[in-house]
């Protein structure tokens, strides 16, 4: 019979990946959640029959509905977790893994960090203590762009200039798959001596550097920041709720960030045999995959802009070239893709070899070169028109060229 694993919060960002990974590795996974088979929500007394016989339980569920400063007995995250851990102990489950956070601190600025810390404290003192393993998880990225990760990815791609707080704060980004692997190891591994594990890379990076990686991964250019004081940022967060079209930012998240401080993780990574990947290439790969279609349409637009009716082979060459040079996707707007002529408004001079759009057009030119030797030329009037409009539009292009830098 397949070993049984219980996972709460299994529909969330981490939970879904963990469930998939556990099933892939042959575990019989029981999901505890609101909309699932054994209907359960945090705070409920779990049925002993659901727990019995399991080799481990990973508790990821967290309720955001609790009023922030609720007293401990009223904070369902605290009482619910304790109740679950004690039930697991009573049902003979040998390991209870609690998903905490690297923001877990007594003095954390955000409620989330403080709550996690209090849960950790209570778990250490409760009857279930011998079976408890705490996993303090770093900044999770990768996979579906939801939750905090989705928000950061969106923000980073939004604009080349971002107002931002806490830029020099250190963060420890860890890939979703690595978190899932770590949690699985904790919930199923035989003898792990540590009680509290840190699932995060050893070397923290600055938050600014992290946002840049997220932006580059999405094939966009560099990112510049306008540092913002915390109070202004909190105000701005409230404003985001009022404005349409831009992602809403919960002040909680901003506070979490402002209060982050790196945690030592090397011992945990060694024990769990986790070898963390470099986020930049990993992300470029992930984003690259999902952007295959748009990047093809972009390639088409670039070639058409240069006056070439693209053939399949030219398109393929260009897509590959763009991907290899890290220029895919450029993020051309839908209007531009439909009417490539509009690129004339944004195109920088060809000798600006560091400009992304200039580079992409250079690749498009090269990709079409082999077949062009025999192709038809623009002719005198066409050429004069192209050159004079280029010169006339120059000031406008200087202004707009920044867009696809």
């Amino acid at each position, binding site marked *: 019979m397949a070993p049984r694993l219980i996972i709460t919060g299994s529909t969330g960002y981490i939970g879904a990946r963990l469930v998939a990974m556990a099933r892939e590795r042959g575990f019989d996974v029981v999901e505890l959640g609101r909309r699932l088979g054994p209907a359960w929500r945090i705070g409920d007394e779990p049925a002993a029959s659901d727990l019995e016989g399991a080799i481990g339980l990973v508790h990821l569920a967290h309720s955001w509905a609790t009023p922030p400063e609720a007293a401990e007995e009223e904070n369902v995250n605290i009482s619910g977790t304790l109740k679950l851990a004690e039930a697991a102990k009573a049902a003979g489950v040998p390991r209870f893994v609690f998903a905490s956070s690297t923001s877990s601190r007594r003095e954390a600025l955000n409620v989330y960090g403080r709550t996690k810390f209090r849960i950790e404290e209570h778990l250490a003192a409760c009857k279930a203590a011998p079976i408890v393993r705490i996993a303090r998880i770093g900044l999770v990225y990768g996979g579906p762009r939801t939750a905090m990760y989705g928000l950061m990815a969106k923000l980073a791609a939004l604009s080349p200039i971002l107002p931002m707080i806490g830029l020099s704060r250190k963060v420890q980004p860890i890939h979703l798959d690595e978190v899932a692997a770590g949690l699985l190891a904790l919930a199923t591994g035989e003898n792990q001596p540590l009680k509290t594990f840190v699932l995060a890379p050893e070397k923290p990076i600055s938050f600014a550097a992290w946002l840049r990686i997220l932006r580059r991964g999405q094939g966009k250019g560099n990112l510049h920041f306008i540092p913002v004081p915390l109070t202004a940022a909190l105000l701005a967060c409230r404003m985001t709720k009022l404005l349409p079209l831009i992602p809403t930012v919960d002040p909680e998240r901003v506070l979490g960030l402002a209060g982050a401080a790196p945690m030592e993780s090397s011992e945990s990574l060694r024990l769990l045999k986790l070898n963390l990947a470099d986020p930049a290439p990993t992300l470029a790969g992930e984003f690259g995959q999902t952007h295959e279609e748009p990047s093809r349409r972009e390639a088409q637009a670039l070639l058409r*802009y*240069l*006056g070439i009716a693209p053939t399949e*082979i030219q398109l393929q*060459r260009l897509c*590959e*070239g763009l991907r*290899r*040079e890290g220029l895919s996707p450029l993020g051309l707007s839908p209007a531009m893709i439909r009417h490539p002529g509009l690129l*004339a408004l944004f*195109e*920088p*001079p*060809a*000798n600006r*070899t*560091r400009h992304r759009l*200039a*580079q992409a*057009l*250079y*690749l*498009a*030119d*090269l*990709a079409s*070169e*082999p*077949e062009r*030797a025999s192709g038809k*030329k*623009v002719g*005198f009037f*066409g*050429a*004069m028109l*192209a*050159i004079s*409009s*280029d*010169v006339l539009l120059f000031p406008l*292009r200087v202004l707009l060229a920044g867009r696809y830098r």
Partner: protein
Amino acid sequence: MNGPDADFIIIGSGPAGVSAAFPLIAAGRRVLMLDGGDDAGSQEESRSVRVLGSNLESLRTDDGSSPKLQTPAARGILEPFRRQSGITGDGFIPIGSLARGGLSNIWGAQISYLDAEDIANWPIDIASLQRSYEHVAKRIGISRNADVAIDADGEPVLPLGATAAHVLHRHQAVKPADGSFRLFPAVNAILSAARPGRAACDLRDDCLYGCPTGAIYNSRRDLLLLRKSPHFRLLDNMQAISLTHSSGWTVGTADGSSFSAPRIILAAGVLGTAALLADLLPFGEQGLRLLNSPTLAVPLLCPPRLLRSPTPTHSLAQLGLSLRYGSGASDYVTGAIYEVGTLPAQSFINRMPLGRKAGRAAFELIGSSLLVGTIYYPGDQSHSYIRRDETAGKRLTVRGGFADGFGLRDETLKKMLRREWKRLGLIQLPGASLAEPGIDAHFAGTLPMGAAGPFGTSSDGELNLHPGLYVVDGSILPDLSSKYVTMTIMANADRIAHRLAETEANSAL
């Protein structure tokens, strides 16, 4: 110990190495040739691969060097040397190759001949060099670009591009003010008639991407001939890294093999040879003198040719020129004129302050009336030294620079050139540039023939203090005129090999 592996070991399969091999083999000597590279891939690939590289290598940003050095073929030739030779540049771009055939895989095939005045300071006579020029010319195939059917010497000719032809006619019609400026159809090592294993030039005008027909001379083709001889053996991927002498010479290679012979012939190219001799030469404070040719590129517009289409021709040099700038024997520059319309458009568009679309339109509009002149100064106008970095073991650094007073001479020359362009009805466009030393790839003079001391060689290229160690590449040319150097390197290697074959034969008797 085993017997020697051959009578001669030649290190390097570039123009110098193969030119030394032919006479030795003809005389029945056993020759083992070692080359650091291998067959740099077949050139019979599709145009797409030649333009873009099989790995899309050319989908990279322009690094500002000559179009020739950016083509995918060139990267495969230059990069292994860059990585493995241990030679870096300081104000100098060290160009060398570790590929079968050496730099002749990507050279421009421009040919010049030195005359008695050019070699006044050499310890050899012009007649012996001329004999060797003939041997080499016969072997590699040389043609002229002309708009007449057959040139005076009966050599086959290639059609001259229409813009170049226009300029040449103008030159003939409007006589120069004095005798200092000469303009003539370029002489190239390009076949205009097929011969076994090589087709004639098909005028496809994308020579920069490599010549799939073999019309442009490449010493790799000579290796096919050499390998037919039972006396010749070529080993690829054998980068020589050490030379030791006991009863004969032993060559150690990067993969740990060793080969011995009574005589070693170094033909690894001037930089490759210097790297190999790093342990045998007392480099000293200043380092080893290196001659190279300061190089100027000038864009020119020929207004009467505006809006005409380019005529089919090859895309190497169309015209040759020379211009005196002083009264000394070597005070002249040599150059070539290329038709831009036949060159890859990107290299030019990348330098325009226009968008790419407009840039291409502009290129199509004026490309056929655009010319680029490349002008080479003689080696005495350079001031370059190869230095050994004691802290980093065998590593060498080439420090590049120009001779004292070069700036002034350059100004005078540019003024004289402007006068000539005007006479030829050409407009000099902005964008003329003096290249970083080294880009010329014309290197010579590190171990001059006839010089005394540890850095000199005999008139036969035998390194002083190291009997049995011969050098045949550009290292031993005592001075470097502004003329194209490879034909002379080949002729000199041929001359030395004939001498070695003779003296060897005599001593064997």
